[in-house]
C-alpha cells in the first residue's frame, strides 16, 4: 500500500562507511552521516545509520493501517482521512492562511477574479495579514501595497491585520508587529497539529510548533482565501536525530547549516524534515524556529519538531484556542534517517553563494569582511540578539565593521531595549550594542535580508562581504549582485564583527 516513495529499497542504507568530514567525525564510533563527496553532483548519502524502529505488528490483511509520521498524520486529520501515505494528494483544510505586503495584493487580486469582486473569505478569523517586507521605504508601490492590504481587511473585516500607517515612527503603530513568521508565533497563531499556509517560503518556520506549515504562491493563496482548502501532496519524511549536549558556542543556526551542507539545497525537495533527539528537546521555541526556518533552503516542503512541554509553556499566554498535538507513530516509515552527535559539531558558515556551501567558521578566518547584519526571521529574534550581546559582552571591545541590527518585530525591539543580559550587571542588549559600536537597532521588518527597494536600511548597494544571520546567500540576495554573503549564527556574526574577519565565536566564548 505504501507508495514507491517509501519503498524499503530507497530508504535505509546500512553501509556504515565512515567518511570523516573535516574535524567532526574524528571518532568512528560516533555515528555521523557522510559528507557529500561533491556538492553539486551527488545527492546520494553514503552512510546513514539504520533507524531504531519499534517492531511492527505483522499485518494479517492488506487493510491494516501503516504507522504514519507526524506530517502524514496532520495532513490526514486535516483532510478528514484515516490514513494517508506519501505521494497521495488530498484536499486539506487550512487552519491559518498568512500573507504579507509583497504577495498579499496579488493573492487578493486572484481571489477577487476567481470568486467575484464581492466574494468573502472563507473565515475572517483564519486569515492573518502581516505587512513586513517593504515597510520603511519611500517606494510608492511598496507603500501602496500596504494600503491594498488595509482596504481588503476593512472590506472583509479581517480579524488579524497588523497594520502600519506611520512609517516614520514604527512605535506609533500599536497594531504593527513586523516579520510575519516571528509575529505568527508571538501572537499565538501557531498551534500543534494544525495546518498553516503562507505566501512566503519561510512559512515552514511554524513547523517548530509541531504543525504542518509550508509556503505557497499567490494563486494557491487565492484559492485558500475562497475555500479554506488546498490540494496538497503528502511528503515522505526525512528524520534528523540530534543527540548530545549543545556546546555553548553553537546555536540552532549551526545545526541547520550542518544539515543543509549535508544533504544539499535540493536534498529535501518535496520532503518533510522531522527534527528529534535530546538536543532538539533542549532547544527553546525560538531556536526550534530557526531550525525549521531554513528547511526550505534544503528544498524541504515542511519541517516539524514534536510538541512538548517547552511548546506548551510558550503557548500558555499566547493562544486560547484548543489544539491537539500529533506525534509520529512508532511504526512510522521514514525515507531516510540522519544522526548527529551535536557535541562534535563546530560553528559553521555557508559561504557565497549557496546555503549548502558549508564551511567551518574557523577555516574562513582569513576572509576579510565589510559588514555584519543581524536580523530576519532566521536570526533576528530576541534570543538571537541576546546571543550576539553575549559575544560583545565577553569581548568588551568595539566592532571593526558596520554592524546592522534589525529586530524582527516590535516585541523583539522592546526586548532588546529592556531585557537584562545575563552576566552584564543589568545591561540591556541595546546598551551592550551601543558600547560595542553597533548601529542603533532599526525599525522591525524583513529589512535587507532580501535587498528590497533601494532605500532599504542596510541594503548592500556595493559589492561587499557580509556575515549575516539571514537565510539565503544566492547572488544578489541582499542587493548587489557581486555581494558576498556568509550565512552564520548570531554568535559567529558578532564574533566576526569584532575582528573584521569571519570568526569562530570560540575566540570570545571560551
Amino acid at each position: 500500500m505504501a507508495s514507491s516513495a517509501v519503498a524499503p529499497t530507497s530508504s535505509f542504507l546500512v553501509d556504515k562507511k565512515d567518511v570523516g568530514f573535516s574535524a567532526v567525525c574524528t571518532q568512528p564510533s560516533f555515528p555521523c552521516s557522510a559528507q557529500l563527496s561533491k556538492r553539486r553532483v551527488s545527492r546520494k548519502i553514503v552512510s546513514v545509520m539504520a533507524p531504531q524502529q519499534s517492531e511492527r505488528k505483522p499485518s494479517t490483511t492488506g487493510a491494516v493501517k501503516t504507522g504514519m509520521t507526524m506530517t502524514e498524520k496532520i495532513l490526514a486529520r486535516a483532510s478528514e482521512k484515516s490514513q494517508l501515505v506519501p505521494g497521495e494528494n488530498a484536499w486539506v483544510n487550512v487552519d491559518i492562511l498568512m500573507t504579507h505586503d509583497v504577495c498579499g495584493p496579488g493573492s487578493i487580486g486572484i481571489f477577487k477574479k476567481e470568486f467575484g469582486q464581492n466574494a468573502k473569505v472563507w473565515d475572517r478569523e483564519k486569515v492573518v495579514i502581516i505587512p513586513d517586507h517593504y515597510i520603511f521605504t519611500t517606494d510608492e508601490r511598496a507603500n501602496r501595497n500596504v494600503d491594498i492590504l488595509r482596504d481588503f481587511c476593512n472590506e472583509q473585516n479581517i480579524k488579524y491585520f497588523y497594520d502600519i500607517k506611520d512609517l516614520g515612527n514604527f512605535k506609533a503603530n500599536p497594531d504593527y508587529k513586523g516579520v510575519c513568521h516571528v509575529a505568527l508565533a508571538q501572537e499565538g497563531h501557531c498551534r500543534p497539529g494544525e495546518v498553516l499556509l503562507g505566501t512566503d517560503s519561510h512559512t515552514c518556520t511554524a513547523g517548530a510548533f509541531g504543525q504542518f506549515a509550508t509556503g505557497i504562491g499567490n494563486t494557491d493563496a487565492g484559492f485558500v482565501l475562497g475555500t479554506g482548502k488546498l490540494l496538497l501532496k503528502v511528503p515522505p519524511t526525512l528524520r534528523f536525530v540530534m543527540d548530545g549536549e549543545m556546546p555553548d558556542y553553537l546555536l540552532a543556526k549551526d545545526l541547520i547549516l550542518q544539515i543543509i551542507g549535508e544533504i544539499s539545497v535540493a536534498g529535501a525537495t518535496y520532503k518533510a524534515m522531522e527534527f528529534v533527539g535530546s538536543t532538539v528537546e533542549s532547544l527553546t521555541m525560538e531556536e526550534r524556529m530557526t531550525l525549521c526556518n531554513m528547511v526550505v533552503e534544503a528544498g524541504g516542503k515542511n519541517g516539524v519538531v514534536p510538541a512538548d512541554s517547552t511548546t506548551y509553556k510558550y503557548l500558555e499566554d499566547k493562544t486560547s484556542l484548543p489544539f491537539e498535538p500529533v506525534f509520529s507513530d512508532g511504526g512510522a516509515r521514514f525515507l531516510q534517517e540522519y544522526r548527529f552527535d551535536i557535541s562534535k559539531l563546530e560553528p559553521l558558515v555557508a559561504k557565497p553563494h549557496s546555503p549548502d556551501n558549508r564551511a567551518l567558521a574557523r577555516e574562513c578566518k582569513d576572509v576579510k569582511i565589510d559588514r555584519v547584519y543581524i536580523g530576519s526571521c532566521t536570526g533576528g529574534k530576541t534570543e538571537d540578539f541576546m546571543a550576539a550581546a553575549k559575544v560583545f559582552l565577553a569581548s568588551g571591545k568595539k566592532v571593526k565593521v558596520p554592524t546592522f541590527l534589525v529586530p524582527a518585530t516590535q516585541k523583539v525591539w522592546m526586548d532588546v531595549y529592556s531585557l537584562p543580559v545575563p552576566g552584564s550587571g543589568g545591561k540591556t542588549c541595546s546598551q551592550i550594542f551601543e558600547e560595542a559600536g553597533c548601529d542603533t537597532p532599526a525599525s522591525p521588518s524583513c529589512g535587507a535580508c532580501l535587498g528590497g527597494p533601494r532605500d532599504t536600511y542596510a541594503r548592500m548597494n556595493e559589492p561587499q562581504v557580509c556575515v549575516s544571520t539571514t537565510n539565503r546567500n544566492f547572488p544578489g540576495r541582499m542587493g548587489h549582485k557581486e555581494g558576498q554573503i556568509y550565512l552564520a549564527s548570531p554568535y559567529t556574526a558578532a564574533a566576526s564583527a569584532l575582528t573584521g574577519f569571519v570568526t569562530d565565536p570560540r575566540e570570545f566564548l571560551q
Partner: protein
Amino acid sequence: MAAAAAISTPPTFNLSSGNPNSSSLPHLKLTSCNVNPSISYSQSLKLDRNSRFLTAATASPSSAVNGTNSFHGLCYVVGDNIDTDQIIPAEYLTLVPSNPDEYEKLGSYALIGLPASYGARFIEPGATKTKYAIVIGGDNFGCGSSREHAPVALGASGVAAVVAESYARIFFRNSVATGEIYPLESEGRLCDECTTGDVLTIELGESKLINHTTGKEYKLKPIGDAGPVIEAGGIFAYARKAGMIPSRDA
C-alpha cells in the same frame, strides 16, 4: 497527450510519473488571469496561452483542452540552482502580478538577477520582451522564495516553456498554478547539451525536444501529475470539475 486519459481520475490520485527525484506536482493550475484585461474571465486562460505558444507550430489542437502541442524558438541556457532572486530580484516585488501594467513590467525584469558571467542578456537593453521562448536549466530550478512573481516574470517576458533537470517544489507548483510557463523535466543535463541561441522544438505529445542547431533529439519526462490539472484548466477549473467549488456562473 498521454495525460489526457487521466482527466477522468478522481481528485485524489497517486503519482504515476515514476520519478523518485520527483518534482511531480502536488497540484497544478493555470490561472494566468493577468495577461489581458479585456478577455472575459471564462475564456481568458487557454486563449492567451495558445496565442503565445503556437508560433511556427502547425499542430492542430489535440484532444487536450488547452490545445498546446508544441513550443518552438530560441533557447537560453542557465545553470543549476537558479534561485528566485536571480529570476526576479526582490526589489521588483512591489509589482503586483494581477495588475496588467505591472505584469508587463515584471516581464521586463525577468532573469535580470543573473550574474555578469552570463554573456548573453536575457532581455536586450531597452526591450521589454525576450527573444528566447525556451529556458533550459539544470538542477533545482527556481529554488528559494515562494514568490509567484518568478514564473510570472518569465511568462510575461515571453518564455513559453522551461526545461530543467529538476525543480524546486514551490516554483514548479506556481508555474502550473499560473500557467505562465510550461515546466518540463529533461532526462539528463540538457543545460550541458544546448547553447544559448540554439533553435529548439518541443513536441509535448511525444515528450521530445529537438535541437535544430545541433541536430540532436532528447527525451523529456512526461508531465505526470501536472497533466490532469493543466488539462482541466488549472486548480480553480479542476476544483469546479470536482465539485469542490461552485462554477463561476452559478
